[in-house]
């Protein structure tokens, strides 16, 4: 009987959440015979399965639609190389310049966005007067609400000439002459400003809200007793933040970075508008480049040959796999934090 009820209800009373609410026997019998639950639960289950299938279908479709390119070029398609060709005329495709552009701009964006986001999160949680907190939080989040094309437009006409070109020229003159990292900052800075640097900076602005929001939540979740413990020993506020709070929330902050990285990898329009869309051989941040998302955006609708089309889908597949892996990594980190908590509660 009990088993039957469970089958019908699917375990309606979730024992984990509310153990106090074990239904009494009469209620239980009543439930067995009531109408409509089976269809209802069937419905929400089918929809859930649909969502899962949808996620899987994206991967599968990309896999299927890129089969020709995968078959023709194999791993060469993705492999790092200095003289890659992306040649729709002769149907020869190698995606390394795009992958390099995406990785470089995203990583550099993280390097810029992380300290700023940390600063925002610390300011919001630890320092900011209460009345200022909500408006500031909103403003930072609005940064994420501005459409990507608007960033692109502002980027092309304002941000590039006013900010990026001067910074780029300065970097070329200073860091450009250093032995190893010089390659990353080799000039000349492109005159229009369209460059990987431009893409990185715009990306940084766009992912700051993501990283800042998650980091802020991490700081909010740190128990006050940790702050008190540190301050009572005579730490300054900053020492408390740097030596206690940040180590405490480290995996959460790492998760925030990964989320931000995922955002940056897939960002399309703003990057396409400012990166310069060029496959020249230079490794430099200050030169025009290309990104995975940009090449799809620019070429997919006009790809005539089947192989060209499939090569673009394969770039999309690579992008999908990257974000999938990042997501799994982020979940793993969250899981690690969660599995650490019970020990702390022991006291």
């Amino acid at each position, binding site marked *: 009987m009990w088993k039957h009820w469970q089958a019908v209800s699917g375990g309606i009373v979730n024992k984990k959440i509310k153990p106090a609410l074990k239904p009494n026997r009469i209620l239980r019998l009543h439930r067995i015979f009531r109408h409509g639950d089976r269809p209802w639960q069937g419905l929400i289950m089918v929809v859930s399965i649909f969502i899962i299938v949808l996620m899987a279908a994206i991967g599968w479709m990309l896999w299927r639609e890129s089969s020709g390119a995968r078959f023709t070029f194999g791993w060469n398609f993705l492999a790092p190389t200095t003289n890659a060709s992306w040649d729709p005329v002769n149907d020869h495709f190698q995606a390394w310049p795009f992958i390099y552009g995406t990785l470089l701009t995203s990583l550099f964006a993280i390097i810029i966005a992380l300290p700023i986001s940390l600063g925002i999160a610390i300011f919001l949680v630890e320092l900011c007067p*209460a009345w200022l907190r909500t408006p500031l939080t909103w403003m930072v989040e609005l940064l994420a609400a501005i459409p990507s094309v608007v960033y692109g437009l502002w980027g092309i006409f304002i941000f590039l000439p006013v900010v990026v070109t001067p910074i780029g020229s300065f970097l070329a003159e200073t860091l450009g002459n250093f032995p190893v990292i010089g390659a990353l900052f080799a000039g000349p800075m492109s005159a229009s400003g369209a460059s990987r640097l431009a893409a990185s900076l715009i990306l940084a602005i766009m992912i700051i809200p993501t990283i800042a929001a998650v980091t802020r939540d991490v700081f909010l979740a740190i*128990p006050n*007793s*940790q*702050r*008190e*413990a*540190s*301050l*009572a*020993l*005579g*730490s*300054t506020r900053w*020492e408390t933040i740097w*030596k*206690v709070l940040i*180590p*405490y929330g480290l995996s959460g902050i790492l998760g925030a970075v990964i989320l931000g990285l995922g955002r940056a990898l897939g960002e399309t329009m703003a990057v396409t508008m400012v990166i310069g869309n060029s496959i020249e051989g230079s490794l430099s941040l200050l030169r025009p480049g290309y990104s995975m998302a940009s090449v799809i955006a620019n070429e997919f609708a006009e790809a005539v040959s089947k192989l060209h089309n499939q090569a673009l889908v394969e770039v999309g597949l690579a992008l999908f796999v990257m974000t999938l892996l990042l997501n799994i990594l982020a979940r793993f980190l969250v899981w690690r934090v969660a599995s*650490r908590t019970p*020990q*702390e509660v*022991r*006291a």
Partner: protein
Amino acid sequence: MEIQTMVKPTTVENTAIKVQVKGLSVYYGKFRALTGIDLTVHDRKITAIIGPSGCGKSTLLRSFNRMNDLTPGCRMEGEVILEGENLLAPAVDVVDIRRRVGMVFQRPNPFPKSIYENVAYGPRLYGIRRKSDLDEIVASSLKSAALWDEVKDKLHQSGLSLSGGQQQRLCIARALAVEPEVILMDEPASALDPISTLKIEELMQDLKKDYTIVIVTHNMQQAARVSDFTAMMMIDEQRAGRLIEYDATHIIFTRPKDKRTEDYVTGRFG
């Protein structure tokens, strides 16, 4: 000094003064949580603060190391004088005060770092880097906190892997490592089992040789067992906490002057 601490029974008159509280009032926003507190804390003695819940014991204790500053809207009036220096003066270096006046909290709150790093945290702040110095400080603090024998073989395990009582002693060791003069304890044993509680109480008797201790407790027996002096607090009609009686512990528990104290210590109250 050494001789003085041996003199029993202790009385208010015959011991050196460490902290003098004069006319202290504390506000949380508009709410006055403490009013007109005058209190003398004696050097190398244990002073207990007792009273019903919500009467401002923690608030008073947190005035000694300005932890109240961290509560938004909290304001302190009056004086808390530590060796001639008014801790509530605006120009005072709060960070240094908190080193001189250490604190142990109700729930053990070790950092999620190793036992070693927990204790070394304070000394590192003050610029002690050399491994041998740190080792010495960690060992001596853990010994003073009666934890050394239990952890000496696992100094690099997480402080969170210890039991509750051990964690609390780790927190005491962590506080001792910065050489405080006064140690504040806010119901340090209330989250612990009886055996751990007993250990903490024994530890306090040891620590008293070198440190001045102020302990908040709502456990009458504990106050009677461990303390030399007892301050009895209670709220008045405006819900503001007041000090209603202060004397040597044996007097408070045997012949208090105030009827309310008598009721409270004999359990006829709240």
